[in-house]
């Protein structure tokens, strides 16, 4: 049982056509395994993360009681994207799981929504958001190393508190960006192979081999997203992260949580007047 399914084309050449669909189960089980392991780890193994002391109460008092975390636009984008993502995963994999329905149209429409939202996000993030806040930097990696060493009982300098986005969060975003771009770019080309109102169907836009590669990339990114989405939802639902999840709805955190978990240097919030 290989990773990709091949076919013989009309010229007798063997060309890849898509991934083996058992990989969707691999991804799902992988995701499940991860979150189980993580849950157990947090519950029984992990030591309570100890952080450097909080800043002086006087300073604290300067912060507003509610700390803005996600702008309305950012939140809208997030939820639009997540709806599209779920629609895509359902239309892609439910029929494969034995629940057939006419999925193609919903799939490419959802795909377009996702693509549009991503394009929007790129612009929005570049010009209106703190662009660099989501990308891992040298410090993150350095501190991740320390955290790992400490967790394994070795001694290492104590890491600082996180900025707006913890390292894991940044890494997750990075992976999502990669798979998201892969799946949407290939997906847009693949629309040329089905009937849409936009252009006449032409599967001969590329050679059989190029198409095959595209389908495989699309498939790998697709099943990858199964796992990634599971993990994302899991964290969103974890009690200690719930405040953050709520902030994706309401938009802000209360001051206390902010002061407790974040480094005010790394996540600067305008002080209250």
């Amino acid at each position: 049982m290989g990773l990709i399914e091949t076919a013989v084309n009309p010229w007798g050449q063997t060309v890849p056509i898509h991934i083996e669909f058992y990989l969707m189960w691999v991804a799902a089980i992988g995701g499940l395994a991860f979150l189980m392991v993580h849950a157990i780890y947090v519950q029984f193994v992990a030591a309570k993360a100890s952080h450097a002391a909080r800043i002086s109460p006087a300073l604290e008092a300067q912060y507003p009681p509610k700390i803005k975390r996600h702008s309305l636009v950012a939140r809208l984008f997030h939820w639009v994207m997540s709806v599209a993502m779920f629609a895509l995963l359902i239309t892609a994999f439910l029929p494969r799981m034995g629940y057939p329905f006419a999925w193609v149209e919903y799939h490419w429409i959802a795909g377009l929504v996702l693509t549009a939202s991503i394009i929007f996000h790129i612009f929005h993030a570049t010009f209106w958001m703190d662009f660099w806040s989501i990308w891992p930097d040298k410090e993150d990696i350095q501190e991740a190393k320390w955290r790992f060493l400490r967790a394994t009982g070795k001694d290492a300098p104590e890491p600082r508190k996180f900025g707006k986005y913890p390292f894991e969060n940044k890494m997750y975003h990075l992976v999502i960006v990669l798979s998201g771009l892969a799946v949407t770019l290939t997906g847009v080309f693949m629309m040329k192979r089905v009937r849409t109102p936009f252009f006449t169907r032409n599967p001969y836009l590329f050679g059989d081999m190029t198409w095959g590669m595209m389908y495989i990339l699309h498939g790998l990114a697709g099943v990858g997203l199964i796992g990634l989405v599971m993990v994302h939802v899991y964290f969103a639902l974890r009690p200690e992260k719930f405040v953050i999840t709520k902030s994706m709805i309401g938009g802000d955190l209360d001051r206390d949580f902010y002061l407790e978990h974040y480094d005010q240097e790394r996540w600067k919030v305008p002080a209250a007047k």
Partner: protein
Amino acid sequence: MAIIRDIMPAFELFQPATVGDALGLLDQHRSDAWVLAGGLDSFDWLKDRIKRPKVVIDLSQVSELRGIKEVAGGLEIGAMTTLTEVVRNPIVKEKFSILSQGAELAASPQIRNQGTIGGNVSQDARCWYYRGGWKCYRAGGNICFADTPTAVNREHAILHADRCVAVNPSDSAPALIALEAQMVIRSVKGERVVNAEDYFVGPAIDITHMTVLKPGELLTAIRIPATWAGAQFYFEKVRDRQVWDFPLMNVASAMVVNGGNIEKIRIVVNAAAATPLRLTAVEDAVRGKPRSVATGEMAGKLAIVGAEPLRYNGYKVPLMRNLVKRAISGVEEPKWA
């Protein structure tokens, strides 16, 4: 692997004598098994070495699957009844003549002598790309070779295509649907009965199958209710050669006309889409209307709403319009005939 055709690969052959045995074998071998009815569709796949079942289950010896019996004014036709037997059956001729017409227009005499009604309704698509062994959507691939800017597709679908544009080639299917027939499906788990129009499945739902039959299931009989016995029927098939050819399109209608008005009607077109199309919109539109050319023309125009022709099958749109018209208002024979 180099490709060679026209020599059947070896397979294990079973010839069960009863439906029970057949179902048992089907259940035992599942996806390894290939059901052989008349075999006229199957042998193409086997001789081309495209499909290579480990096990072939030949139903020719299952006598209980053969024959036509009268049931409550209607009929029950065994799935293994040959098309010739259907054509020659006096009750079919007398009460359900569209079925004998449809069956008689299929293929050739020798094929009708061996081909079965069950096989005819369950037969695979005839798209020449698909049958040529090209790995298209229907063959489990990721492309339709028949819907490309250069494809030659005059025999293909104008309606309800979803990636695959193949059509259903059966001539008896539209007649059965018009007669409100029911398909009796059995497996080791038991029996289920589906309406003829629900027996067929389009590519949107299941792109690699033509019918709702699942592995392990067998179409054992077709029931025709008394409902349409002796109604006014119309069947027409348009094809390139006048024998041994699949329909460019065919149409079947059953009507009850009262005082010149259409009281009840069922009308079905095949070879326009991947499944035989029962035109319910047309039925609703003409019900209660006079059986006239005007009604026919209105029905024809309505029938082709949403048609999406390909490069070479544009003619199928007027063809469907005119056939639907005829199926309702009939056709005038020339004076000299």
